[in-house]
């Protein structure tokens, strides 16, 4: 995907085509099946692209797209033999254009949510969950999915074909699960959303350190879930709060040269207060009820950072307590790594290094560049320059994004010059 920012347009909101595509496919798939629905939608977008440059953007672009997609779908239905059954589908396609004007957005949201649950059906693998959600709900192309998931386009294309066949053969339902199944089914949907967010927050390859568009899409999907009373559960609110709070820091995470700025060094005036406030609001809503998820705790940690006036006044002891809770709820090597950072901040770098040593040989982290990178950072703070150098170099040997690479190289150069300045002549 090009790094070119979207062109702001009067009368055309950012990502309108992408979002409308997802909604239209969701609404039409029940009638036409996935493949024909995707075709009808692609056709509608193509017609817009051919007409609007001459005729101008219609007053209600979204309604226009739905109307045309509906007409294309009806053409399809007339050609396929399925016509009679299809037209009897309750709340059928004839309502689509009316709903497409946004006056009844809730219904459209329902369709998109049903699609999201189908894409994340446990019968399909996790890699398929992500690819399907991005393709069918978020309107990404195969190339854009490949970019986001660091895979080759043919691999993604193949995975999509296979997953769609699975959907057909297993007759996976295009509906929001019943209340008694919802919690379990929601888990895999939230997991996909958070993975998507993290891929945007710390793009793991390529030139861009962050992909705000991926973060925003993850937030949009969570907002869809939070906006529907059937799916607005505390875990959804907590994940939404977490992502909004993290998203607030995005403008300060990368400097003018596209390089990484660590939390402690970020210019907090560049944090987006709108996102912080929305995040805190959703965190409050997440506290309704007795349910507590890992997202609750991670959001609470993010809130500690977001509300600290400056790095020095961060309440690291509170954060460490939250990490202890998180380890108890969801013991993972990455959580343990983050906890070790909190230990270092609350009790000093040497305590942090001891905490890291305990997770050092976890095979899940063997290829994870942040483990040696964090260790190098703590060793540098402890004054152990030779060890710091060794670990920064080890981190550099693993896969990381170009700005992370430059960050590590800068650390190494600084330590090397410190060492040569103090070395006996």
């Amino acid at each position, binding site marked *: 995907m090009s790094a070119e920012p979207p*062109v702001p*347009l009067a009368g*055309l909101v950012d990502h309108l085509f992408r979002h409308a595509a997802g909604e239209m496919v969701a609404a039409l798939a029940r009638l036409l099946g996935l493949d024909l629905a995707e075709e009808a939608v692609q056709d509608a977008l193509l017609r*817009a*692209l051919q007409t609007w*440059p001459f005729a101008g*953007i219609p007053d209600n672009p979204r309604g226009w797209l739905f109307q045309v997609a509906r007409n294309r779908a009806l053409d399809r239905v007339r050609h396929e033999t399925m016509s009679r059954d299809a037209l009897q589908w309750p709340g059928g396609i004839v309502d689509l254009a009316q709903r497409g004007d946004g006056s009844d957005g809730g219904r459209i949201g329902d369709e998109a949510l049903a699609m999201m649950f189908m894409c994340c059906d446990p019968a399909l693998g996790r890699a398929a969950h992500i690819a399907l959600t991005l393709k069918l709900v978020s309107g*990404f*192309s195969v190339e854009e999915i490949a970019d986001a998931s660091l895979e080759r386009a043919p691999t993604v294309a193949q995975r999509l074909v296979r997953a769609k066949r699975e959907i057909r053969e297993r007759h996976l339902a295009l509906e929001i699960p019943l209340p008694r199944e919802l919690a379990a089914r929601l888990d895999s949907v939230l997991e996909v959303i958070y993975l998507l967010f993290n891929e945007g927050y710390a793009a793991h390859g390529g030139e861009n350190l962050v992909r705000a568009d991926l973060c925003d899409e993850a937030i949009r999907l969570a907002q869809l879930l939070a906006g529907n009373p059937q799916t607005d559960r505390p875990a959804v609110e907590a994940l939404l709060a977490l992502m909004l709070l993290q998203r607030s820091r995005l403008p300060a995470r990368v400097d003018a040269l596209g390089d990484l700025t660590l939390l402690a060094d970020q210019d907090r005036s560049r944090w987006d207060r709108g996102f912080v406030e929305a995040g805190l609001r959703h965190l409050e809503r997440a506290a309704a009820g007795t349910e507590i998820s890992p997202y609750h705790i991670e959001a609470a940690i993010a809130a500690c950072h977001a509300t600290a006036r400056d790095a020095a006044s961060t309440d690291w002891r509170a954060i460490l307590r939250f990490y202890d809770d998180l380890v108890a709820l969801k013991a993972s090597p990455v959580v343990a790594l983050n906890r070790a950072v909190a230990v270092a901040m609350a009790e000093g770098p040497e305590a942090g290094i001891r905490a890291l040593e305990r997770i050092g040989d976890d095979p899940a982290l063997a290829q994870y560049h942040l483990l040696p990178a964090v260790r190098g950072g703590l060793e540098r703070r402890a004054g152990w320059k030779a060890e710091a150098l060794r670990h920064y170099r080890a981190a550099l040997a693993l896969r990381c994004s170009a700005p992370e690479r430059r960050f590590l190289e800068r650390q190494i150069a600084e330590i090397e010059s410190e060492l040569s300045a103090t070395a006996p002549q």
Partner: protein
Amino acid sequence: MAQFLVLARDNGDPRREMGRMSPEEMQRIMGKYMTWSTRIRDAGHLLNSNKLRDGEGRVLRRAGGKVTVTDGPFVESKEVLGGYWLIEAADYAAALALLQDHPHIELWPNASLELRQVHDFTQR
């Protein structure tokens, strides 16, 4: 002020390529066209514009007192007339200046714009 007709021709590339694009890419292309036409319209240069239907058309001829109507000639033609803009400018030079960064020729290597002045005999 003179009026000019801007005819957008292409060889079918845009339709083929746009059909393969993702929604986001399509919106980006749309953005380029709208940026151009908004600027021209806001400056008071745009009078009218329309997209013509693809792949159809009729040609009328009269021979021996009889009108014959044929389809086309677009079917065999390599170049397709996709649509037009009617713009207003002082002269050819000014009209050409408005078209320098037109996305139609920026985006599609085999596309062209044809500029024709409307002949107005009441003007000197």
